[in-house]
């Protein structure tokens, strides 16, 4: 108990502070008086010694001195910083940029790679994947019977849940909205250990018979946004598509399933057996018993004591059983399930599918490296500024040392100043971080896949920012400290103290060299990615893509059968053509750079070959709409209607592959499934439809009017045709008019976002654009900082050398020679930086070669131009101090003493 009283008395001390000082003061006075009475005033004072020290010792006994000193130091530091607002502003701004971009990138790293799923014991959840034994492919798709097989025969999971994505139209009153959701097994919520906020989750019998139990758990966001947010929602009926569902529960806030690699958060959950209503891909099939449609993913909770490796061994044995039995249906598929092996991944790491995760890690790693470099440059710059300041403050520090300040105490004081600066920089950096993360999220697909990028600065990110600020403060604070330690009191106090300022000069030079090197690395990266972006854009065949609108009417509703779809498209094209400002309009199955392609087996009886080629369905004005030039023959026209002889237009690759040296126009091609004979009527330029890295494959176009809509695969494609409209004026003004025309035909169609082909293409180039923009802006910033640093060092050096230059000139040196010597000094620094930077860039470029396109990572022109640019900048920056040096008046310089 004694320590408690002690603690109490200590804690009270700050509040009794004044009383304490008064008491101590009076006690000392009394003591002195008594002593003076006994042994004389002089002797008393002499014997009493240092009263101030005694008081400090007494105060120190209470253990509050550290805090008090800190507060004192902080006050002093704040005062010093206020006294030089320019310096403070530059430092805080530099740090804010450095810390801000790092914090922003970290927020994505944290969200995508580090943060665990917000479920109890999420570390015990394992996601079931299959890796190819031949290639690096990893997938997690399985059919419903597959899932049942794993669920019922494994010995390692206390529960195995399945889920698959779905997108449906919700009807709220008179408006329709597309909502993403999931089809889940009945045990889904139990396995994740998530309880609905309201109502209940699914019962096993509700997931037993296809289409029988229309029950739904809605997401918290959907409930608040569209369903009133009241507790009466449980038991209410809502319309999904054409079917009425009963709401049985509301998921807790923030619950968004197991995955991050989705376009949108799931906002509703229905039993897997509701697939006939919810899953567009089901198309009347019996998914309950069909082994060939891998539409589900599975995640299980490991039984207590079971390790991941044990579970994987167990699942592997099940996979072998499947390969020997049901998976024989995949026998003719190359690299299919028969050549795969089980791979269990902790669900926390499977939030992004294991196949794509590597790419995300590479990309974020690159991003972290880049912003880390920027922070280093910022630190170097601040350290350099601090050193210049330390030189100016030598006298102050000297005085304080002479007055008996301990070196440790001075060190604490200077560190406090650094930390104060870095914390202020960190605080300002939060603004930068917010802005940067918004900008990053604006690049919709930086990872070449759908990914949920939520921005926000939560506690973890703030903690990272704080830690980074402190680390930064220590980093740039320590460099100038060396000077304070080496400082001799006597010379520092002498009048001519600036002359000795050369101490620490080598360090500043080194910092400038480092800055030049780092900015070279960033600029080389920037120019490599700018070239990549330009090359990637150049692969797009669309002429003047900024004037072509892309609209997705998505007729993926059940009421649109083949004939109604046709009718809709004909009406739509007529209406759109009639709009003023529309020059061309067409429908296409696969838009350029759309990331997808469809292929078909074809043959030629005459040529005797049998092969496979990509195909695309287009309406007759398509080629004119995007501006794909005709090479020979003719394009489609109105006469290529349903009853007319079948025709096709092919690309150049197909012409060269199948009719080398011949004219393909007039030749015949046979489609195998469904069988059909068509005649080639024209050849058009090649276009990359899947993405700029796609290899050019043989490709043919079929007029939409002649597409035989019998097969479910073909009708699936036909229902999802895109409308492309070339406009004469501002395309944005036509967007609303087109949406109106669509709604005039069917007011229930949820028209997706309308954008130009240019922005559609650029959305697909998110990663390239992000890297190019980020690296060039950061590279320019780094070069600017380095230039300021170089200018500072040179001016400083010239100021220090004034006397020396004066003597030289008095001895006959021409001002031209002086000018040259300063310029040479500058180029020496820049040259050293460039040499180091080139070496580093060559090393780093090899790591990013996978991300480049059409440009070699060691492209000599890139390196040479960046290095040349930096030399020019260096010379320009050096010009001013050099000029000043050459104009030194020897008489004035020598009198200066």
């Amino acid at each position, binding site marked *: 108990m004694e320590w408690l009283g002690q603690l109490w008395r200590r804690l009270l001390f700050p509040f009794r502070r004044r009383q304490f000082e008064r008491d101590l003061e009076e006690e000392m006075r009394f003591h002195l008086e008594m002593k003076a*009475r006994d042994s004389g005033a002089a002797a008393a004072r002499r014997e009493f010694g240092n009263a101030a020290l*005694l008081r400090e010792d007494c105060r120190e006994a209470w253990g509050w001195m550290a805090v008090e000193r800190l507060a004192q130091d902080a006050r002093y530091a704040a005062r010093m910083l206020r006294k030089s607002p320019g310096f403070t502003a530059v430092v805080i701004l530099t740090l804010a940029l450095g810390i801000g971009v790092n914090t922003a990138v970290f927020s994505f790293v944290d969200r995508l790679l580090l943060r665990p799923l917000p479920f109890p014991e999420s570390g015990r959840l394992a996601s079931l994947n299959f890796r190819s034994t031949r290639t690096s492919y990893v997938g997690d798709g399985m059919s419903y019977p597959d899932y049942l097989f794993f669920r019922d025969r494994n010995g390692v999971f206390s529960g195995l849940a399945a889920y698959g994505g779905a997108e449906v139209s919700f009807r709220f009153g008179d408006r329709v909205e597309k909502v993403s959701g999931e089809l889940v097994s009945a045990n889904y919520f139990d396995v994740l250990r998530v309880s609905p906020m309201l109502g209940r989750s699914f019962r096993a019998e509700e997931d037993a018979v296809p289409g029988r139990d229309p029950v739904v758990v809605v997401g918290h966001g959907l409930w608040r946004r569209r369903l009133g947010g009241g507790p009466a929602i449980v038991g209410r009926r809502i319309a999904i598509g054409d079917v009425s569902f009963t709401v049985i529960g509301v998921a807790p806030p923030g619950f968004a399933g197991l995955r991050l690699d989705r376009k949108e958060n799931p906002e509703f959950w229905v039993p897997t057996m509701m697939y006939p209503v919810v899953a567009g891909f089901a198309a009347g099939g019996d998914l309950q018993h069909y082994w060939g449609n891998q539409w589900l993913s599975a995640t299980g909770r490991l039984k207590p004591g079971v390790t991941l490796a044990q579970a994987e061994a167990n699942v592997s044995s099940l996979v072998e059983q499947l390969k020997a039995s049901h998976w024989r249906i995949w026998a003719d598929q190359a690299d299919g399930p028969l050549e795969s092996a089980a791979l269990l991944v902790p669900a926390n790491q499977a939030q992004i599918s294991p196949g794509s995760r590597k790419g995300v890690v590479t990309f974020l790693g690159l991003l972290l490296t880049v912003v880390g470099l920027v922070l280093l440059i910022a630190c170097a710059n601040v350290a350099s500024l601090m050193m210049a300041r330390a030189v100016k403050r030598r006298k102050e520090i000297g005085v304080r040392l002479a007055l008996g300040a301990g070196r440790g105490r001075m060190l604490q004081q200077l560190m406090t100043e650094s930390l104060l600066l870095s914390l202020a920089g960190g605080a300002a950096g939060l603004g930068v971080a917010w802005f940067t993360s918004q900008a990053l999220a604006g690049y919709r697909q930086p990872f070449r896949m759908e990914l949920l990028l939520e921005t926000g600065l939560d506690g973890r990110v703030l903690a990272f920012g704080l830690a980074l600020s402190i680390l930064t403060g220590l980093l740039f604070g320590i460099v100038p400290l060396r000077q304070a330690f080496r400082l001799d009191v006597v010379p520092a106090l002498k009048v001519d103290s600036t002359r000795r300022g050369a101490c620490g000069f080598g360090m500043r030079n080194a910092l400038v060299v480092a800055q030049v090197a780092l900015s070279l690395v960033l600029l080389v990266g920037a120019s490599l990615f700018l070239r990549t972006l330009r090359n990637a854009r150049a692969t797009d065949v669309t002429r003047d893509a900024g004037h072509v609108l892309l609209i997705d009417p998505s007729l993926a509703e059940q009421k649109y059968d083949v004939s109604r779809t046709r009718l809709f498209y004909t009406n739509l094209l007529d209406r759109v053509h009639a709009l003023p400002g529309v020059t061309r309009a067409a429908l296409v199955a696969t838009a350029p750079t759309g990331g997808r392609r469809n292929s078909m087996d074809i043959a030629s009886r005459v040529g005797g070959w049998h092969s496979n080629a990509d195909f695309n369905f287009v309406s007759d004005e398509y080629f004119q709409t995007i501006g794909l030039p005709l090479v020979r023959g003719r394009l489609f026209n109105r006469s290529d209607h349903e009853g007319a002889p079948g025709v096709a237009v092919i690309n150049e690759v197909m012409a060269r592959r199948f009719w080398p040296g011949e004219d393909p126009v007039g030749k015949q091609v046979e489609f195998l499934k469904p069988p059909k004979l068509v005649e080639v009527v024209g050849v058009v330029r090649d276009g990359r439809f899947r993405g700029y890295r796609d290899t050019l494959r043989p490709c043919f176009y079929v007029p939409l009017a002649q597409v035989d809509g019998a097969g479910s695969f073909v009708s699936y494609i036909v229902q999802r045709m895109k409308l492309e409209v070339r406009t004469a004026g501002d395309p944005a003004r036509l967007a609303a008019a087109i949406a109106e025309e669509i709604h005039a035909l069917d007011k229930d169609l949820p028209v997706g976002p309308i954008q130009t082909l240019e922005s559609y293409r650029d959305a697909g180039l998110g990663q390239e654009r992000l890297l190019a923009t980020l690296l060039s802006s950061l590279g320019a910033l780094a070069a600017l900082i380095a230039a300021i640093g170089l200018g500072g060092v040179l001016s400083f050096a010239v100021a220090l050398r004034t006397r020396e230059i004066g003597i030289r000139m008095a001895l006959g040196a021409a001002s031209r020679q002086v000018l040259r010597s300063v310029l040479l000094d500058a180029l020496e620094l820049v040259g050293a930086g460039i040499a180091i930077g080139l070496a580093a860039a060559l090393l780093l470029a090899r790591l990013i070669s996978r991300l480049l396109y059409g440009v070699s990572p060691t492209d000599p022109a890139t390196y040479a131009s960046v290095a040349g640019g930096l030399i020019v900048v260096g010379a320009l920056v050096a010009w001013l101090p050099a000029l000043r040096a050459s104009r030194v008046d020897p008489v004035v310089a020598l009198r200066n003493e």
Partner: protein
Amino acid sequence: MLILKSLARLGPMHGYGIAQHIQQVSEDVLQVEEGSLYPALQRMLIKGWVTAEWGQSDNHRRARYYRLTRSGKKQLTAEISEFEKTIRAIARVIDPA
């Protein structure tokens, strides 16, 4: 220990009195410096071995009187026994008769 003992012997006493007492009793061998005395008193205040209050001195001046508390007395006994043990040990080493 010396401060505690002085307080035990004299009752409540101010800092100067304690210093004087120790000096007199030890016949000027032990001189207590103010620089050590007052911080030591502060530490004892924190530990709760003594309490302090303002009172009238012999010459009618306000002075701060320190008073031994119960835990202070316990501490004193403990320290004296510890000290005596040490002294006896040293004595045996010096004079191993």
